[in-house]
């Protein structure tokens, strides 16, 4: 039980992620079938819907923007600063910092991850592993959005007796960029809001907030 308690954050978000993904499947199918009936078309089963491009483009356009948000945030917070924000590093620590501060190579201790101690390419890779993985997931999900989005778009084109488009043309289409940008704008707003609001607002007990009594200009400290 104690072990479980130590992982409640990831478990909670995994649970609500699954619940909302499943919920999206049900309401998405209902929404799709509503449109089908309006077009005098045939409805489809839930099983068919969740294996359709219509469903997966809606999923992937959101995933790619979330991972882009984290990719930019991870790399941005290395060099960019925000005075007073707990989301920022301290004002004199912009950049990659020293090996000593980062506990790599000879400065690693017995509890450091193995690749932090190893040195060379392995340490270099591990030092950027968060960015690499977040960025890779972003690119993969964005690619998936473009593929599934093109299929869904072309189905709509054919339904209206218009010619379909190839993948290259779709990448330049307003449909692709509308899906992309509507997601990006909300992600960037959320991150920016968090960086700024946390300067002046507090949430007692959360590491996302400064301590309640911390001054507004205190930078890079957690509650």
């Amino acid at each position, binding site marked *: 039980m104690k072990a479980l308690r130590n992982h409640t954050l990831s478990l909670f978000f995994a649970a609500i992620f699954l619940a909302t993904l499943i919920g999206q499947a049900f309401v998405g199918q209902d929404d799709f079938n509503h449109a089908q009936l309006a077009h*005098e078309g045939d409805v489809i089963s839930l099983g068919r819907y969740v294996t359709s491009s219509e469903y997966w483009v809606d999923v992937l356009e959101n995933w790619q923007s979330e991972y882009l948000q984290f990719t930019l945030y991870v790399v941005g917070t290395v060099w960019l600063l925000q005075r007073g924000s707990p989301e920022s590093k301290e004002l004199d620590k912009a950049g990659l910092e020293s090996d000593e501060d980062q506990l790599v190579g000879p400065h690693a201790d017995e509890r450091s991850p193995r690749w932090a101690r190893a040195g060379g390419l392995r340490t270099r890779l591990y030092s950027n592993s968060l960015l690499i993985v977040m960025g890779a997931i972003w690119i993969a999900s964005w690619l998936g959005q473009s593929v599934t989005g093109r299929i869904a778009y072309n189905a709509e084109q054919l339904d209206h007796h218009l010619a379909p488009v190839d993948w290259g043309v779709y990448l330049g289409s307003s449909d692709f960029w509308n899906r992309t940008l509507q997601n990006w704008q909300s992600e960037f707003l959320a991150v920016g809001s968090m960086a700024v609001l946390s300067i002046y607002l507090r949430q007692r007990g959360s590491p996302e907030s400064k301590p309640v009594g911390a001054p507004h200009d205190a930078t890079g400290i957690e509650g």
Partner: protein
Amino acid sequence: MRVLRARGIVPIVLLGVACGGAGCGGGTDVAEVRAVSERFSAAAEANDGERACAQLTPQTRAQLEEQEQRQCREAITGVRLEAGSVARVQVYALNAMVELSNGEAEFLEQGQEGWRLSAVGCTPQKDKPRDQPYDCQVED
């Protein structure tokens, strides 16, 4: 009508990238679409209105009957369609397009009856086939 059959993200992504500019549908769907188009062409050439109408969607049959004020099997034989073989088939979800060797196109939809033609005898609008609907002799 929309919907696309995706059998898993990784295969879909790889399939989509590999397909590039070509339209890709499952092999079975492509074969069925081709078969419907060929059955329609053969029936139209043979003046077999009954069989030709059986390849149309119910909405297309109804539209034709309303437009011509005759039963579909009589009205369809009066439509002048140029002969042509299937040159290319593209399937996206529940929709498909057949391009014929004579330059015309046909549009199909997948419904309860399987793949059926929603429009035949279609020619693209000048220079903008992606933005303006094809001009079709028979459509829903």
